Each structure stands twice: as structure tokens, then as C-alpha cells.
């Protein structure tokens, strides 16, 4: 990996290290940098150059993906502060939140048999979006206050939101197939 590209993702895009992100700046700098290192620029280059180009572009894509996805961005900010995750095993200890999520999951299953399942699912999606917004705000506050454990809990909650979105998506696709 080439040296400068291993620096922190925020610096790569010239963005301040914080949760709030200027999406337009991120997008335009991403394209600017891609234009420099993309393998398409080195089609007639040597194997070595092509290898570096693929690595650099891969790194940029990963960095971009991380910064534009709320959970990954939050998680990344914490990792910069040395907070480790094992998301497959960790789960939030907020019982109320877990109960809420279980209710949502039940609603999703019910929605599948509703008269207009797509409308039901859309509605559920809106609810989750607003909950996700609350969790994001919670993360931002905790992170700024350096309450890393609270911030970590928020990331785990965001994972739940993601899972529910993908569950909704899965059901929509299943409905599409009929």
C-alpha cells in the first residue's frame, strides 16, 4: 500500500475528523482522487503500476464507503480512538431498545401479509429512518463528549437499523418474485 493512502480516511478526503460530513465535498474529492489513481489511467502501464492503481483505488473506494455510511463512519471514528468491536458477537445492552427492535421485526413479518405490503414496508422504513436519526444524534453527542462507551452502544444500535433495512429489502425482493 502506498504510504500516504494509509492515512486516516478523513485526511484522505481533506475532511475534518468528526461525525458530521459534508457529503458534496466528500463526493467531489472522491471523484477528483479517483481520476488520478484509477486503473483506467494505467491500461498501458506496467504490471507494477496497475497493481498500485488497483490497490489505491480499492483503498479509496473503501474509505469513501466508510465515510458515507453512517454506521461505518461512526465505527471508524471510534476505531481511531482505539475502541475495538466484534460486531458479530457484541450487542447493545439497552433492553428497551432491543424490545423496540423486536416489535419492529414482528411488524415487518406482518407487513408481508398485508393488503399492500409495499406501502406497509415503506412506512416501517420511515419509522426506522427516524429512529436511526435519533441514534446518530446520540452518537454525535456521546462522541463529542468523549463518552466512548455510550458512543459504542450507538454504533451497535445502528447495526440493528441496518439489519432491519436489509430485512425489509429482502422481503420486498421476495414479494417481487411473485
Amino acid at each position, binding site marked *: 500500500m502506498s504510504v500516504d493512502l494509509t492515512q486516516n480516511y478523513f485526511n484522505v478526503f481533506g475532511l475534518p475528523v468528526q461525525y458530521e460530513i459534508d457529503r458534496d465535498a466528500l463526493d467531489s474529492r472522491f471523484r477528483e482522487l479517483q*481520476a488520478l489513481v*484509477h486503473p*483506467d489511467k494505467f491500461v498501458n*502501464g506496467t504490471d*507494477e503500476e496497475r497493481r498500485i492503481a488497483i490497490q489505491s483505488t480499492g483503498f479509496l473506494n473503501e474509505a469513501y464507503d466508510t465515510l458515507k455510511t453512517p454506521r461505518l463512519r461512526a465505527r471508524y471514528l471510534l476505531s481511531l480512538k482505539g475502541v475495538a468491536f466484534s460486531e458479530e458477537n457484541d450487542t447493545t445492552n439497552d433492553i428497551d431498545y432491543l424490545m423496540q427492535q423486536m416489535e419492529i421485526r414482528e411488524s415487518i413479518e406482518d407487513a408481508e401479509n398485508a393488503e399492500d405490503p409495499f406501502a406497509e414496508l415503506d412506512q416501517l422504513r420511515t419509522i426506522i429512518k427516524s429512529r436511526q436519526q435519533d441514534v446518530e444524534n446520540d452518537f454525535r453527542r456521546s462522541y463529542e463528549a468523549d463518552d466512548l462507551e455510550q458512543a459504542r452502544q450507538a454504533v451497535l444500535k445502528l447495526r440493528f437499523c441496518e439489519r432491519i433495512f436489509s430485512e425489509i429489502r429482502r422481503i420486498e425482493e421476495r414479494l417481487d418474485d411473485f
Partner: protein
Amino acid sequence: MALLQISEPGMSTAPHQHRFAAGIDLGTTNSLIATVRSGVAETLPDEHGEHLLPSVVHYNAEGGVVVGQKARMKASQDPQNTLASVKRLMGRGKEDLTLLAGHLPYTFAETDSSVPRIKTVAGEVTAIEASAKILSVLKRRAEETLGGELSGVVITVPAYFDEAQREATRDAAKLADLNVYRLINEPTAAAIAYGLDKKAEGIIAVYDLGGGTFDISILRLSKGVFEVLATGGNSALGGDDFDHAIAQWLLEQAELEQTHDPSILRQALMVARDAKEALSQQAAVDVQLGEWQGRLDNTVYRQLIEPLVKKTLMACRRALRDAELDKDQVVDIVMVGGSTRVPLVREQVAAFFEKEPLVDIDPDRVVAIGAAQQADVLAGNKPDEEMLLLDVIPLSLGLEMMGGLVEKVIARNTTIPITRAQEFTTFKDGQTALSIHVLQGERETVEHNRSLGKFVLRGIPPMVAGAARIKVTFQVDADGLLSVYAEETTTGTRASIEIKPSYGLTDSEIETMLKDSIAHAGDDMALRSLREQQVEADRSLQALDAAMQSDGEQLLNESERKQLLAARDKLARERENQNDSEALKAAIKVLEKAAEFYVERRMNRSVRDAMAGHRVDEF
């Protein structure tokens, strides 16, 4: 060394040589080749003025091969030896064939190879070899028109082609002796042609219904950057299925649905195809099959094909969802592929997007034209062109986990190239090996996804369960092709594979085919390889000289410079020796290796320069 030049955009290091480049649309029904001449991209006709080359290959008893229109005319007389729609077989294994069997009049040979072989009077052939014949004809057409050898081509594939199908396409190009700059997705190519032509900005949808495949892609066009946001489709659904639906209806009407006679089946298909074309213009058409005569009207025709069109709209809905967009955010819908001429298709697409689709670009040629424009940029013929293509993988990539479940490592619609690592661990005490099974697809269980390959990481030192740290890295290159590496990080035990799809040709099969291939008859392979290495050597030498002249003083210290110059001189001497391509290749490698740190340094500096003015303290 192109990369060495990037920090000096204003300074040309070597006079640029115009390279002949072309775009190839290798279609199910027809194929085309296009190139950019005097700034204009256009498809190239054959000597009779025909641009479309029917993707049909006929093999005769004398061992001869005919491609195109003449081959198509043989289809009804000699279906067994006339391969049409072979694109449907690309990258398909024997077990896939049972799905297609009803549609194909060929006899397949018993073979040990994982690639199905079709029996013809001229011997057994694969879909890859038949495709190579088509590519060779197009290559010759372009080289005769341009008056020189092609440096490289961009070949289009359906966005929804999986790993195996992409590899098969690359293999066909290799057999046709073509240098492939890049495989790009057909809808993306169409978007390039459309975007450059209309100077469009914003979100567009490309609806591509070809003979055998359907693709939908959603792109964002912004200041020369073509960013694919989502892609979807079905690699086994196309206009041919309309023909089959009509043919089935004809057979039922004629009470011939039990027949297995290939010539009757062929005839039903031909009648169906003509009827379909006629119904694009008129309300009803008289049809005849064997003794039976009848009339097919638009109402029946629509009923026959409507379920197929609906399937394409489901894929559109899914792609929009993946892109997290609503229909009303789409500014234009570009229609691609001959099957979008069918009025019902246009109507349904318009109804779905609530907007009239664009049909003013020739749906047959737009893909080849976009590919030619991309090839021209990749060849370096447009150094000032600000065009950049950011494409995605169409299908998720993952690994088999305990219990036959699939863990996704890279989700579909992730921008490529991408490198992503995931950590796993052992689940038994003292476990010394881990089997890694790579899969492609969206489903949750192994058996519903496509197996891309398996390998075993051995030599893990015995530890308690859960102590080993096994990092599995997926790397997808700009063509959408995958490599997978595994490493036990506490000890550094490694294993890796370039994914060769389970249905791909082995290297030795490719080698045999290359030797057999007519393209190489009379061509001295050794000499050819030497010439290639010489060109490569010259390119490396020139690039290094130019780079060192421009910033060797600033970026390198005395001993680094000496080292590089020593490697340079060694290569220059090998270049003089003129006769050993292997030695030359090795010397190029040595120089590249030696220059690697310098390349990275220059690259980083150029990235830094680009970022200058965008510092954190701005905020």
C-alpha cells in the same frame, strides 16, 4: 510507465503515439465493432456495408468455419452444425445446460472438461471457441479498415454476467488474439455514448433488453464521471424468449407440442421471429407451421410476452431500491438492445418510470459506440479527456460459513476495484486447516449461489479454538474479476487463488486451443512474444528516463538513483541482445520492482498536490 507521468500533467514525457483501439459489442444475436476516427465514434461495416455481424458460426465437414450472415442462412438446413446464441452458453457448466436444453438443438459431447462441448462435423467446439471466431472476424474488419494492428479493445458484457461468464469472454478474446483493455458492462457503455452525445448530467436509467439478456443500470452522470449506482437484471432473459413464447404457441396451435424434431422446432422459431418483427408494425400477421395456418394478433402476442416484460420491470424496481432513488429522480431512460423496439416494451417502461424513454439513439449500435469511446480513452488517445468510469459488481461475493450459510464479504453494487478483508477464526481446538469456499449471489444458503472456487489454508499452527486470526482478502479488479487470499495473521501462513470459476477453462485447455486456433496458424509465437517484450522494455525505459529527468533529483537520494540506474542499464543491455524474450521479461520485472518505491512516491506526491488547497484547517 504511465503512473510515473501523473505528477507532471502539463509535461508530455514522450510524444504520444496514436493507438488503434476499438469497442466490441459481442451480442447474443448480432455483434458489432466500433472505433473512434477523427473524434467521431462509429461502427464499422463489412465489405457489403453491413454493420451487424450475426453472432452465428457454422462448421462444415471440410473443417471450414463460416461466421455471420452466411452462417445464419445455414441455420435451418444444418442446425446441428450451426451455433447461434452461444453467448447464452458462455461460462455455463454442464448442469446449467439442462435448463437451456429445451431451447438448444445441439448435441453435447461427453467430456471431462467442466466446459460443455458441442459436437459438430468439424469436431467438438466450446462456446468460447465459437465466440473467438466471431471476435476474429470483427478484429480483421477493424484492422483492414484502420490499416494497422489493434492495440487493445473494450469488450462489452451484460452487467449481470457473473464471474464465470466474464472469464469466458476474456478467454474468447485471448483465443482471438485480442488485447482486452477492459470488459465493461453493456448498459454502462450505452450510458457513455448517450452521456457524451447529449452532454447529460444527473441520474439516468439504462434499460437494455437484448436477444438473450436483460440489464438495468442506474447511473449518476456528473462532470465526465460516469458513476454506476446500481445494476441488476437477468442473464437468461431476452428477446429470444419472446420468440420462444410465440414458437411455443405456434406448436400448440399446430398440435405439434410433443415433437422433438429439431427442424420443426427450428422452423417454429423462424416463423416466430418473423411474426414478432411484423407485429412491431402491424396489428396481426398470418402464420404457418407445417400443415397448420393461422393468424397471430397483437392481443395474443401481448399476452404471450407480458409476463416476460413484467419480469424486467421487477428488476428495474430492485435497481432503483438499491440505488436508494425514487423513479421521479431519473431524468432520462435510455433504451438499448433490439428488443426495445417491441411496442409493448416501450409502453410498459414508460408506464413504470412515468416518463417517455429515449429511443432516438440506434439501440443496436449504442453499446459498441460507447465501448469504442471508452477504448479510445483507455488507449491514451485523449490525454485531456476528463472521462472516468466508476462501475460496480453486479452480484454479491461471499464465503461459506458453518451450516451452509453464506457470509457476504462484498455486497452487490459496490464500486470496483475494491479490496476488502474480513477476519475469521478456527472453531475447533488444534485445527490446522481451513477450507475456504467462495460464492457469488444474493441468496443466504450455499446451494442457491454460484460456487466460484474452493481452496484450503493449511499449516495453521495448533491453537485453542477461536485463537487463530484468519484474514481473508477479496480483491476485485476493474474488470470485475476476483482474487482471494487467506492469511493466518499471528503466524503469517498464507494461501491464495485467482478465482478460476468452476465452469472455466483450465490454463492447459486454453493453451491447447491457442495452439489449434487458426488465428495463430503460421504465426511464430516466440517471435511475437519477443516483439511484445521489446515494446514493453522500451516503454519502461522511456518512462523511467522521463520521470528521473523531471524529479529524480528531488525524490531520490544518491544511492537510490544509482540503484535505479543499474537496473535500467541491465534492461537496456538485455534489450540490445534482441533474442531472449524470457530474459527480457525478467529484466523488465527487475526494473519494475526496483522502481516500485519511486512510483509510489511520485503517486503520493501527485495525490498530495491534488489535495493541496483542500486541507483540514480550511474548516
